[in-house]
Each structure stands twice: as C-alpha cells, then as structure tokens.
C-alpha cells in the first residue's frame, strides 16, 4: 500500500462506518453497535501500524501527503500563494495524539454500547464523525485544514451532548457550542490574518515567515499569540474560560465525556504547543511567566474547587481544570523537560480521565447517582469498580509508576529551572490533588455503606476491556515512559530550535 495514502485512510476510515450505518435499519440495535465499534478499529490498527513503523526506525515523514486543494483567487496571481493544500502529516507528537485518539475512540465506542440507551444509529454516526474530526485535527499540516477538522468536532459533540446527555443537556450543549465557537472564532481570526499576510497556512512555512521581522512586527505578533492563547485557552480550558467544560462533563453521556475529556481538551494543549510555541516562540517566551501563573492558578483553582464538590463528576471536571494547569506549567517552562511534561500530561490525562469517566458511567448506570454521599461504601458492592476507581485516582494524583507522575514530575522539573517560586506555589496543587481525590474516592468507596448494594452488579464482561486497557497503558507509561518520550525527541528538538535554545 502506498504509504502516503495511509493517513487519509486513517482519518477518514470512520466515515465508512457512517455510510454503513446509514443503510442499517434503526431497529437493528446489535448490528448498529457492532458497526459503530468496528468502524473505529481501522483507525486504531493503522495508528498502531504507524507507531510500529516509527519503532522500526523508519521516517514518519514517509506518510506525509500534500495535494493542492483550494486556490483562493483574485488576490494574487502567483502560485502557490493563497492556495491551501490538502496536507496531512505526522510527527512524533502528532503520532502520540493520534494513537491516543484512536485508542480512546475505540474504548469510548465500547462504552457507548453500554451507556447509550436510545437512538444508537444517530449516536454512532455522529460519534464516528467526531472521531474523524479529531484524527484530522492531529494530522492536519496546515492551519485551515486544522481549523476545518477542529470545527468538524464541534457539531457532533453538540448533538451528542444535547441529545444523549442528562437533565440539563441542552444548556450544556449550548454553552459548549458558544464557548468553543468563540474560541474557534478567535482562532479563525489568527489563521486568516496569517493567511492573508503570508499567503500560506502551512505550519512549517509559517514558522519561517512569521519569524521574518519585515512581514510581522513584534507587537502585532504578540497580539496574534494572545489571541491564540485565548482560542486554545477556551478549549484547554484556562481559568476563567472554563465554566462550559464543567457543564459538559456533568451533563454529557459518559462515553462522550471520555472522548471530550480524553481528547478534545487536549486539542487545546496540542494547539498551544504546535502553533503557539511553533509559530510564535518569541512571544511565548515573553508571556512565559504569565502562562506559568495561569497554569498555577488553573492547578490550584481546580484543586480547591474540586475539594468541596458533592458530585463526583464535578470533582473530575474540576480536576481536569487542575490537570490542564500542569500542561500550562510545563509549557511555561520553555525547556525540554517542561514541554515533554506537558505533552505527557496531555496523553496521561487523556487516559486517566477516560478511565475515570468510564467508571463513573458504570456507577451511574448501576446506581443512578454520582453523588459522593450516595455512593458511600461502594467497595462492598462493587469491589472491582471501587478498586479501579481508586487506582485511577492514584494515577490522577500522580502516583509514581503511573503515567500521571511522570508528566507532573517533568512539568515541575521544567518549571523549577526557570520559575522556582511559581513552581513552588504550584506544588501546593500536588497536595491538594491528593486531598480532593482521596476525599471523593474514599467517600464513595470506603466507609459505611449508605445503601444496599444488593443486585448491583460489579464490572463485568465487556466493561472490563476499557478498564484494563486504560489501566495497562497508564501503568506502561508510568513504568516505561520511553514509549512516549522516544517519538517525542525529534519534535522537541524542533521546538527547542524555534525557541532558540
């Protein structure tokens, strides 16, 4: 097979599932679920194959594809100015995100088979569209293509939340749409300004052209970078742009939150690293202190608020905010350790939050509640679920041997080199993370049972697959972080080159 077409197949393979689903009658629940699940597999297998390709020591650029696509005419007759290429590509960082996406998508599809109780057909069609969007986001090599895939994720997510969510689903869907719409609007401004000024949106070319002081003045670039920060800050989310995310985490169905918290939030981190740092390295440097402070605020704000929540979903939602603070902290360090920590954190949090939300989904399905108080003593009725919940919490609070630690450690390692004081304040977050997670998880699993757990089934059958896979990956990364760090080295070098260090 031609290597150049692999990425396209990888990205668009879920669409095949949509087509198949379209011809399956609504009532055939089993077939729909099967197709929905199977349609995520090609992407998974291909992404693993790409990873294997990398492990075999071959070049990831083998996969890049670039075909002329749109020529915006009328501005300038010279080619290739103002033309947009259909260009997909993959580097180490993108590879990780793609693998993460495909893994979590497959698991979320399994989750959906369990958690979604109605209209599977519509659900899986939207879900697969979402998967395509996410895969595209991480493989797009130019900003317009990136933006297109970025927006493609918005609409299915809106519907997935609004239709299959819990009580206040529509409100959550709207606030998702509006916040992210605003974020992407700001992003679009940046993209179009860059496009209009340079005539290209290819990221590599932009890196060089934006560095040209003739084309862009410093202050102007700073403005663009701040806009970018805001755009991805909504997605990440950065305080105070976070309130939409709480609603989504609480109201969306668990299988969607797995995707949302696991991958969609990471687009923010991805964008900040790839575009913020890649295209505007000097500006990033200028604002590094601010970003570090924002990171610490995020970390602490999320942690403190998670500490007093009564709904476990809210705890996890705030914990996501808190953990995304670590991403910012790592990025603000502007050194290898910090950036690698940030990327690790993105991947690690993706896995951990997917695991935790899957478990929440199971709990909710069995007990119709996610209130900590109502779940007390769960370990008696659902020992396996409780055990994994605890393990997930441990991973989340940065227990060594699990992925959370490596990321947290590197992020702080990086920041302590440049901003020891801010980092020192940030470490309070480490303590608080332990405090709120244990409070919540022990509150749910330990202690006297507040209710009968008769007839409440523990994890079983196919539910164990996502749990085991995620746990295994979390531990794998924790024990042998090189699985992530080795693909990253080349990417890091490029970033560091851009930062001039």
């Amino acid at each position, binding site marked *: 097979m031609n290597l150049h077409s692999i990425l396209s197949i990888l990205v668009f393979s879920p669409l095949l599932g949509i087509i198949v689903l379209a011809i399956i009658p609504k009532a055939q629940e089993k077939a729909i679920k099967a197709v929905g699940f199977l349609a995520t597999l090609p992407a998974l297998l291909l992404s693993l194959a790409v990873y294997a390709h990398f492990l075999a020591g071959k070049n990831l650029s083998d996969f890049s594809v670039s075909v002329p696509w749109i020529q915006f005419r009328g501005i300038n007759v010279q080619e290739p100015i103002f033309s947009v290429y259909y260009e997909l590509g993959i580097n180490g960082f993108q590879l990780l995100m793609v693998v993460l996406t495909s893994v979590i998508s497959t698991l979320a599809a399994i989750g959906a088979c369990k958690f979604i109780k109605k209209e599977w057909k519509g659900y899986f069609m939207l879900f697969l569209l979402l998967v395509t969007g996410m895969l595209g986001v991480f493989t797009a090599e130019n900003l317009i293509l990136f933006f297109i895939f970025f927006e493609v994720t918005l609409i299915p997510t809106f519907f997935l939340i609004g239709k299959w969510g819990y009580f206040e689903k529509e409100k959550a869907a709207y606030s998702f749409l509006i916040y992210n719409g605003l974020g992407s609007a700001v992003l679009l401004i940046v993209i179009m300004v860059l496009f209009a000024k340079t005539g290209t949106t290819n990221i590599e070319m932009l890196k060089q052209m934006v560095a040209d002081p003739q084309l862009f003045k410093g202050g102007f670039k700073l403005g663009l970078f701040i806009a970018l920060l805001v755009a991805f800050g909504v997605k990440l989310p950065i305080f105070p742009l976070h309130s939409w995310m709480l609603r989504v985490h609480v109201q969306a169905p668990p299988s969607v939150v797995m995707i949302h918290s696991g991958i969609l939030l990471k687009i923010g981190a991805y964008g900040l690293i790839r575009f913020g740092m890649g295209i505007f390295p000097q500006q990033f440097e200028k604002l590094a202190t601010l970003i570090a402070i924002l990171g610490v605020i995020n970390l602490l704000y999320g942690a*403190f608020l998670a500490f007093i929540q009564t709904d476990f979903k809210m705890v996890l939602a705030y914990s996501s905010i808190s953990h995304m603070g670590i991403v910012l902290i790592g990025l603000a360090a502007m050194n290898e350790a910090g950036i690698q920590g940030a990327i690790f954190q993105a991947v690690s949090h993706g896995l951990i939050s997917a695991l935790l939300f899957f478990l929440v989904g199971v709990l909710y399905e069995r007990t119709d509640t996610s209130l900590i108080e109502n779940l007390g003593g769960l370990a008696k009725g659902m020992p396996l679920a409780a055990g994994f919940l605890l393990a997930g919490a441990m991973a989340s609070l940065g227990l*060594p041997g699990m992925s959370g*630690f490596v990321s947290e450690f590197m992020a702080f390692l990086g920041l*302590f080199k440049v901003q020891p004081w801010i*980092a020192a304040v940030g470490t309070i977050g480490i303590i608080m993370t332990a405090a709120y997670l244990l409070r919540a998880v022990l509150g749910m699993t330990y*202690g006297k049972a507040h209710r009968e757990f008769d007839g409440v089934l523990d994890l079983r059958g196919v539910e164990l697959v996502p749990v085991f896979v995620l746990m295994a990956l979390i531990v794998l990364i924790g024990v042998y972080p090189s699985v992530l760090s080795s693909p990253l080295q080349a990417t890091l070098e490029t970033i560091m080159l851009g930062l001039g260090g």
Partner: protein
Amino acid sequence: MENAWLIPLFPLLSFMILLLIGKRLREASAYVGILLTLASLVFSILVLFERFSEPSYLAKFNWLTIGDLHLTAGFEVNQLNALMLFIVSLVSFLVHTYSKGYMHGDERFHIFYAYLGLFTFAMLGLVISPNILQTYIFWELVGVGSFLLIGFYYYKEEAKAAAKKAFIMTRIGDVGLLIGMILLFWQTKSFEYSEIFNAVEAGGVSNTMITLTAILIFIGAVGKSGQFPLHTWLPDAMEGPTPVSALIHAATMVAAGVYLVAALFPLFTASKTALLTVATIGGITAIFAASIGLVQTDIKRVLAYSTVSQLGYMMLALGSAGYVAGVFHLMTHAFFKALLFLAAGSVIHAVHTQNIEEMGGLWKKLKLTAPLFLIGTLAISGVPGLSGFFSKDEILVAAWEGGHPVLFLLALIAAFMTAFYMFRLFFMVFTGEKRGKQKDVHESPSVMTMPMVLLGILAVVAGYVNTPWFGSFLGDWLVDGNPALGHSHIEGPAWIMIAATVVSLAGILLAYLIYGKRSIAPDWLSGKGDMLHTVLNNKYYIDEFYKLTVVAFVTGFSYLLRFIDVFLVEGIVKGVTGIVQGLGRTGSKMQSGQVQTYGAVAFLGLAVLVVIYALTGGYLR
C-alpha cells in the same frame, strides 16, 4: 549482587499473582506471599554476605530521555542498602508468616497479602534505588502500600479517615522532598546520589542551596517518619491490621525517612544548619511523642507514639553527625519494635480489644507472648545487655559529642519516659487483676509466635554487632570507604552510658511502683497536673490545631473560590449573554410593526451618516 534487582520483584510477583488469582487461592494466598518473600529474604542475606567481602555494585539503564537529559533507573548495593534489604525482607517475611495466623478468616485475606506484597516490593525497591528520583518513586509507592493497608478495613470510618490522613500528611512531606530533589537536580544536573555528592563536595552548589535542598528533603523524611509536626498520621495509622503496624509503621516505611537522611548524609553534613534542623526536630519529636505516650490507653497507640519517639531519636543521631548511631538504632529498633507490635497483635488477637485498661493479668495466659513482649520492652527501654541499650547509648554519645547538650538532655528525659510508659504498658497488660470481659484467652498459634521468637532473639543480640565493648563491627563496615559518613564509632565519656542506664531503670522503677506494685496511685500524675494530663491526652491538640487552621483555611478558601466561580466567572458570562440578549430585545422592540418607523430609522441613519461626514470635516475640508 548483580541479581539484587530480583529481590523486590518477588513480592511484586506475589502482588500480581494474588491480585489476579488470589480470590481462587483463598487462604493459600499466604503461601504465595510467604514463599516469595522468603525468596527475597534468602537473596537479601546472600547479597548482605556478598557485600561484606565485595565492593559496592551499581547498575543502571536509561529510563527517560528529556532532550539531552537522560534520567536513569537501576539498583545499587552498598553497605546501607544491603543492610536495609536484609532488615526489610526479614521483617516482611516474618510479618507475612505471622499474618497467616492473625488474618485467618478474613474474607479479603488474599487482598491483604497482595497489599503486603505491593508494600514489600516498594520498600525493597526504595532501599536499592541508586538515585533520588527512583527513591522518590518507591517512596510514594510505599506510601500507597501503607495507605491501602491502613484502610484495609475499609468499611470502618476510622480506617478510612486514617488512611486518608496518612496519605495526605505524608504527601505534604513528599512535596518537600520533590521540590528539594528538583532543586538539587538543577544544581547538580543529576539525580544520582554519587554525582550529587561529588557536586556538593566540589563546591558546585552554594551553601544556601545545600541548606535549602537538605531541609526540603528532610521535610519529606519528616512526613514519612512521623516527625513533629507531621507526626499525627502515624498513631491514627494504627487502624490498620496489627501486622501492618509492625511491618510498615514500626520497622520499615517509617524508617524510610531516617534511611533517606542517611542515604543523603553527605549532603546534610555539608550544611550545619540542615544538620541542626534534623537534630532539633529529632530531639523535639523524641520527647514530644514520648510525653504523649505516657497517657495513652490504646496498646497500639502507645507503641505508635513510642515509634515516633524512637524515630526522633534516630533523627537526633543523624543530626548530630552520628551516622552509625542512627542506622544502628534503625536496625535494632526495627527488630524490637516489630517484636512489640507482633506481640501486641498476639495480645489483641487473644483478648479482642486494644484498650489496656480492659486487659491485665495476661502473663499466665499468654505464656509465650508475654516474655517476648517483656524482651521487647526491656530492649526499647535501654536496659543494658539488650540491643536497644547499645544503639541508644550510641545516640546519646553522638548528641553529646555533637555539641547539643540541650538535645542530649531532651533525649535523656525521653529515654526515661520511654522506659516508664513501656513498662506501664507491660504492667497494665500482663500483671495485676483481670479487667474487662476476657473470654477464652489463649496463646496464638505457632505461625504467629515463631516470628516473634525469632525477633525476640534478634532484639536481644542485634546490639552486639556494634558495641563499645566488643568492637564496632557494624560501624566500621558501614562507613568503610566513605569518609563523608563520619566516624565509625564516636568515643564518649563513660558517664553517659551510666546515666542512660540509671534513667531507664528509674523509669522502670516508677512504672513498677505505680502499675506493678500499685504503691503509688495511677492518678498520681493526672491528679497533680490536671491540665497537663488533659493536654497530653489530647496529644497537645495538634490535630485540633490543624483542623482549625489548615483544614479550615482550605475549606474556606475553596468556598471563596466557589463564590468566585459561581458569581464572578459565571456572572461575567451571564452579563455578556445578557447584554447580547438585551440588545436583541431592544432591537426586537424597535421593530414596532409601524412601517413609517422603518422609513424614519432609515432616514435617521442617513442623517447621522451625513452629520458625521459633515462634522468630520467633509464640508470644511
């Protein structure tokens, strides 16, 4: 020694086996755990003996690459590590064995063994780590093992609270360690112990930095070893099953703090301030915990406070540059304190209560446990001839020679108190009349007593490896090739030994008079100082203090943030949407349905544009 890396893996294997198929093995799980820890023990002994004759061994591989930084993982066998391997695997093996009897009948028997395996793995991994990062990793893992085991009786609210408290309090310390470690890394560009020491020795690190990092790392040790002011979790941790207390909260994990300071000893010696801090905290903890121990009525809590106090001793030793003394006491303490806990467990197993006021007169019924408990008590009290005597003496000498007379005095008083409350415990449990409801009290099975016997022997003889009389074999071996660790044996004036003996005997005598012979009323102390007694009984109100300050602050701050979240952040959002909606409403209202208004608006628009044009100089230009 090349295969020392296998030692931690056996318990890990046990953990994994039991997690996966433990449910089917049921109580046969114990054999898995016992056999695999036995394997660790055998290897540890081999390694220890090998280390007597061979130099240290270090192996490492690349663990994580960050740009040009290569973080390694691996293992190292040096004197301290080999000794610790032996202590840990021995105690762990004994506790594994003991638990087979103690935990008999528990429905989560296999889980218990699995957790024990996890903990043992982590602890063994901790002691063979060649770099501080790896130490930190296992440091946290032992914390988790401890957390899981404290919370083993998860359905008890107290256990839940204790587990949580243990985890969070130690984590506070851990963050100190983490910061210290990272700062040290950026100073020395390495996590390797040897490279850190080289850098410190070469003067590559400023004095302030050394002091700062050393103290930060010491905070980690404070958390783990239950030193003042982070000690409160350790007594609460007694909610776990008693074998756990013996293994984790007496012999191994809590000693990890001492081990850490010992392992980084060259760093600490490079800073006077750091050493003084260590010594002071150690000294304060020693007397502070001992004083609380005076009035406790829970058998395990008395032992817990005694542990805290003894750990303070070790810190005092290390802080007084008495490296050998500290490590020596660490070893002897591991044996006699494990013995005491196991014996206490045996007592609890027999009488099903932990309240010493409901015990009494058990000497006759527990024919084996009682003498073993006495041995432990004698050893900890520092009665000459037993292991505790020698190590405690070393510490007192170190403190005196280290130039800390005040701390020396504190240590001496603490020694008196130790002797007093330990014998108070002994007399109340084993002598006198039977109190409370004791039914079918009988001796524990041999699977429980045999480990105690072995520990009893060690509690007696372990001291002789390093004595002023028969040569300081342990000391010589420990500091061999490492001048930075100080002298193998500190000579001190002979009166110190006598003073120590006198003090401990005095303590025993007083305890005898009050609780044994009952010639002095038990409320003699409390009667005299009512307030003092209340204060001691409430553990100096430390928990309450924390609740009122830290916990209240965190909660209050959280609610403040929630206020901000709900009203400020959401409020702004609501405001913006409100403005947009309001605009919409206004615009919608203007759409009055009157067609003439529409025309008027259009004309008005035109007029405004014209006026603006005129005003901005269109006409006058």
